[in-house]
């Protein structure tokens, strides 16, 4: 039972911090919140370590045959530790960094939400059945909405939060679908029984999980929501992109890979999505002028690489890359936050802060080298492993992964040079410093940089073999050409950008409209707006119009048509009847004349009557649209009787 305490503890402490935190004196608020939040998360981290060592599990029956389960297994345990650790560092940073304008008034809410958010993510990580996963998934989504919309007074933050929430929520439906399919097939939702799913249910389940993961991990075509998520505070981005939220998608694929792989199409589709995202994200990162959006594009690209590894059948490699990426990406966002606060702008063109923020620049260099996958950092090792796994699937996959690595080296260099490069004579000098980094912020970055360096131990064969064995995976066999090719591409990417910069031609702001569109995810948002959002709205408007005009008009027209028909018919009747009359009159019988007169009247009356009836019916049908509730109740009551009667007698 105790394993439940890990997520529940954070989910409880978070709201408490959020509610009581603002009562601390303004001078001590940051200290109290930072210490409180970081302590709560550190406790969860220690608990995760203990749970991982004991590989503890827990269940909670909710009735109706459903059992919620959590387990700190070989993959879940380490990732849980990672989540708690990164969240601890980020919360420390957040309590010092955020809320400069409002003097920390909303800070309690932010820290509380961050802590609870980490708790929800722990639930996702530790989940051992699809229902627990779904619960955690939705909690993560809902809390991410609150976090991204934290600065709700900004005009665009609520809309951006809604965009992120709707995009991931839509994918979340896939998870519900998957859970439904699994439950229908096996009567259970536990991960251990998913292997028994087959047939249509299997395909539905795999498609559902894939949809959910793709949306959460911001892979193509869902990537743009990650740009909207940039409306949130920097520390939120740091947590969101590194070990939570975005990680949830890739993590779900990793955990469920053995099951997903039983669908033959899963591997190729995952590799395709991953590669497209990795390459496209690289290009976007090369063109973005917004500091955080550049990093967001790189996040998508890196998760694309992880999904490639999962698709290639190497989830263990994906876990390693997830860990390495979490460490350096969290640090990059923290650095970006410091830089943005320093110049008071997101614009990379206004930075070049090495002279002003020397320590931040040095620490960031570690993270950018990791992002560029330069040995001997751990991130380089994990990227090489992804490459090896990709080659295992197909040589061209490995080559494309290497190209994506080159791109990431290029945009990593670009970020480092633009944000923390030295000032250039031909560039506008940095704006006056708004605020330099506080000691806590530097410590947070330093801790993460140290972690990145420590991960370099993975290059030692004994270490990475032990780690892979611990994760229950076998490292893919590397071919001899991979490392040289990959390093050459990395070097090329970095060199191209560096030389462009030396010549002062590094395009920090995309020049043309087409470049701008590419930087904005290849105009994908516009495409989505054009292909999904606008048609939906149009359809709704059209349906309303149909209701207003056509249905109503139909009734009107029916009445009018009836009238006109009646006129024509009676005219026709007159003509024919007259002809008959004349014919009969020629015979000169008075009797016939009289009888025809009767017939004429009858026909006319019938036609008139039908027309009158049609008109009245049209009017009467319209009269039911009174908008009065009590009259509609009668319709409902009668309808209920009809339905019940059908249910009773229709069997």
């Amino acid at each position: 039972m105790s394993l439940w305490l890990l997520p529940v503890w954070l989910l409880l402490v978070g709201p408490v911090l959020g509610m009581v935190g603002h009562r601390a004196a303004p001078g001590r608020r940051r200290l109290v919140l930072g210490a409180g939040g970081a302590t709560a998360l550190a406790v969860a981290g220690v608990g995760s370590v203990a749970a991982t060592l004991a590989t503890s599990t827990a269940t909670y029956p909710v009735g109706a045959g459903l059992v919620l389960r959590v387990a700190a297994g070989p993959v879940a345990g380490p990732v849980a530790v990672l989540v708690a650790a990164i969240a601890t560092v980020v919360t420390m940073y957040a309590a010092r960094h955020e809320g400069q304008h409002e003097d920390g008034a909303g800070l309690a809410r932010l820290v509380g939400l961050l802590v609870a958010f980490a708790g929800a993510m722990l639930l996702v990580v530790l989940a051992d059945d699809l229902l627990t996963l779904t619960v955690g998934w939705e909690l993560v989504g809902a809390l991410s909405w609150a976090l991204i919309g934290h600065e709700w007074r900004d005009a665009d933050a609520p809309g951006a939060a809604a965009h992120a929430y709707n995009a991931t929520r839509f994918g979340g439906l896939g998870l519900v679908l998957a859970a439904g399919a699994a439950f229908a097939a096996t009567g259970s939702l536990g991960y251990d029984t998913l292997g028994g799913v087959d047939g249509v249910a299997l395909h539905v389940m795999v498609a559902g999980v894939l949809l959910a993961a793709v949306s959460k991990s911001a892979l193509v075509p869902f990537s743009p929501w990650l740009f909207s998520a940039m409306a949130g505070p920097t520390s939120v981005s740091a947590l969101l992109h590194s070990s939570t939220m975005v990680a949830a998608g890739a993590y779900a694929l990793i955990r469920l890979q053995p099951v997903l792989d039983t669908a033959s199409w899963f591997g190729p589709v995952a590799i395709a999505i991953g590669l497209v995202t990795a390459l496209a994200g690289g290009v976007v990162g090369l063109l973005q002028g917004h500091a955080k959006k550049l990093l967001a594009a790189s996040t998508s690209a890196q998760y694309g690489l992880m999904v490639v590894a999962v698709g290639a059948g190497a989830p263990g490699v994906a876990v390693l890359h997830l860990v390495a990426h979490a460490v350096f990406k969290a640090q990059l966002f923290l650095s970006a936050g410091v830089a943005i606060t320093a110049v008071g702008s997101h614009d990379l063109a206004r930075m070049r802060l090495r002279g002003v923020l020397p320590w931040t620049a040095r620490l960031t260099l570690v993270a950018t080298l990791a992002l560029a996958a330069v040995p001997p950092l751990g991130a380089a090792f994990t990227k090489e492993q992804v490459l090896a796994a990709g080659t295992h699937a197909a040589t061209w996959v490995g080559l494309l992964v290497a190209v994506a690595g080159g791109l990431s080296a290029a945009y990593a260099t670009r970020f480092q040079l633009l944000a923390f490069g030295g000032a250039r004579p031909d560039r506008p000098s940095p704006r006056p410093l708004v605020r330099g980094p506080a000691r806590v912020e530097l410590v947070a970055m330093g801790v993460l940089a140290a972690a990145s360096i420590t991960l370099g131990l993975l290059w030692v064969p004994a270490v990475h073999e032990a780690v892979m064995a611990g994760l229950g995976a076998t490292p893919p066999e590397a071919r001899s050409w991979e490392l040289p090719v990959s390093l050459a591409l990395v070097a090329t990417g970095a060199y191209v950008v560096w030389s462009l910069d030396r010549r002062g031609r590094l395009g920090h702001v995309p020049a043309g409209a087409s470049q701008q569109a590419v930087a904005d995810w290849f105009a994908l948002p516009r495409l989505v707006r054009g292909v999904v959002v606008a048609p939906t709205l149009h359809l709704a408007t059209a349906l309303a119009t149909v209701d207003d005009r056509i249905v109503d008009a139909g009734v009107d027209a029916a009445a009018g048509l009836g009238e006109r028909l009646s006129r024509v018919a009676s005219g026709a009747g007159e003509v024919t009847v007259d002809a008959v009359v004349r014919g009969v009159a020629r015979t000169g019988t008075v009797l016939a004349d009289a009888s025809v007169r009767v017939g004429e009247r009858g026909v006319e009356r019938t036609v008139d009557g039908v027309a009158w009836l049609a008109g009245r019916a049209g009017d009467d049908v319209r009269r039911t649209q009174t908008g009065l509730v009590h009259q509609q109740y009668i319709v409902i009551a009668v309808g209920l009787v009809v339905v019940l009667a059908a249910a009773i007698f229709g069997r």
Partner: protein
Amino acid sequence: MTGLAVDIAFWTFAVAAAWFGWRVFRTDSMVRATFCLLASFLNVGAIMVLLLAEYLGVAMFFMMSVEMVVMAIFMVAFMMNPAGLNPMEMVHQPRAAIAVGIGAAVGLGVVAVVADLPPAALLDEAGTIRALGNELMGASMLLMEVVGVTLVATMVGAVVLSSASGRYGSADTGSVPPLLDPDDPDSRPDLVSADGEGDAHAGHGGHGGHGGHG
């Protein structure tokens, strides 16, 4: 209790429940109408006790009494003539309503008479409450959790819908005070302009007038 006593009690309660249910809509006093409904509930609760659903019956007493007291307050607040001092007829489509009502009762009655409901009496007449408790805290736990969440959502929804002010200001913005004379459109006190900005000089009386009903 013997079978005959139970039968007598059942018919008494059933007739009383129906009679009070009928009086709800036929009495002029709104307070009486409310408490007629309560009486109907109490009689149904008594029938439930006879049906050995003892907990449900007593819970009906408890819950419905609270609800009807609240209902009475709303009746007095929203209905003209709450005490029934004047004869009043606030009905529409009376004949259709009677027809549908009788139709529903007769239809369901026919179903009750002709339906073939296989009898299966209670196995453990003494343990109904314990069985209910075990069910609620055991197999139906999920259901009860849903019930709890639903009630929380209801509370939030009711407060949001009915609260007079929100984060973005007063919910009264744009609303208009009632006519003092229902037939005279000019009798509206302190007309609030369409954009929600009340007349600064005469705006106080308008809000005070919300409590009354034309």
